């Protein structure tokens, strides 16, 4: 059994309205030293696989097919054995 941690982020240059709004809310709260705030997704899942390589291959596939939107998002992931 493996644990996958997946990080999905907006591609560079793609507008992040959410990040903008959160950053300006932080600024209003006095945290004006904050910059370049971007909001992405973080997923955790468990999966059965023959080995870490196999698990990585599967997770990569899932990201491409469903978890990330390749048109505007990048993804990366970490696999660890449970």
């Amino acid at each position: 059994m493996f644990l996958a941690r997946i990080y999905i982020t907006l591609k560079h240059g793609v507008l992040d309205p959410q990040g903008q709004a959160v950053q300006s809310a932080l600024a209003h709260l006095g945290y004006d030293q904050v910059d370049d705030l971007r909001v992405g997704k973080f997923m955790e899942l468990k999966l059965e696989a023959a080995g870490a390589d196999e698990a990585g291959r599967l997770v990569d596939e899932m990201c491409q097919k469903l978890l990330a939107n390749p048109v505007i998002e990048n993804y990366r992931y970490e696999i660890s054995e449970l």
Partner: protein
Amino acid sequence: MKFGLIVFPGSNCDADVYYAVRDGLEQPVDYIWHKTERIEGYDCLILPGGFSYGDYLRAGAIARFSPAMQEVARHAQRGGLVLGICNGFQMLLEMGLLPGAMRRNDSLQFRCHYTYLVVENAETPFTREYQPGQVVAIPIAHGEGNYYADEATLAELEQHGQVVFRYCNEAGEIVPGANPNGSVGNIAGITNRAGNVLGMMPHPERCAEAVLGGTDGLGVFRSIESWLKEGGYHG
């Protein structure tokens, strides 16, 4: 009697509530910009629906820091009426005036349609013009209305009659099929322990006029009116 309606960047049901109070209830009402630091002379403050700050991060999370919100909290503490509708309910949760939190609808989709609600507590300042157990038709329009509270909190809410509205079917049965968003216990609206703060996901202002297809929502506003007339706390 005077109503105050707090307007945030991204509020979009503010005018609807305004007209429901002004034309439906025929009571005076003012818009209050969220940056207002001193709010005096209002008997009921309303947080309208919409997408304050785009609902980015979490619905209602950013709005709670507006200066006007401190005034809303102060008004509530003194026993004044506060009504949060939809996004307003979400703000009340985020600022802790009501317990619990909202998650995304279990369908993961925005939902807009009429729902049936059963009035579980008809003794609050917001529901006293309804009959206990009355079934009313009031529309919802939200993507994050999936109410959550832990078991202890839920038990408290139940024990003190703080669950005011639940989603039900036309016959008034509280069944899973009548739950539009996955809320625990089909909860659609709750008050605080003192009963002077109500948060509800459905939009009573959308059915306060016959031309809109229903008037069941008017009961919420009429309740506030009668409660105030009978000596409820005036700001």
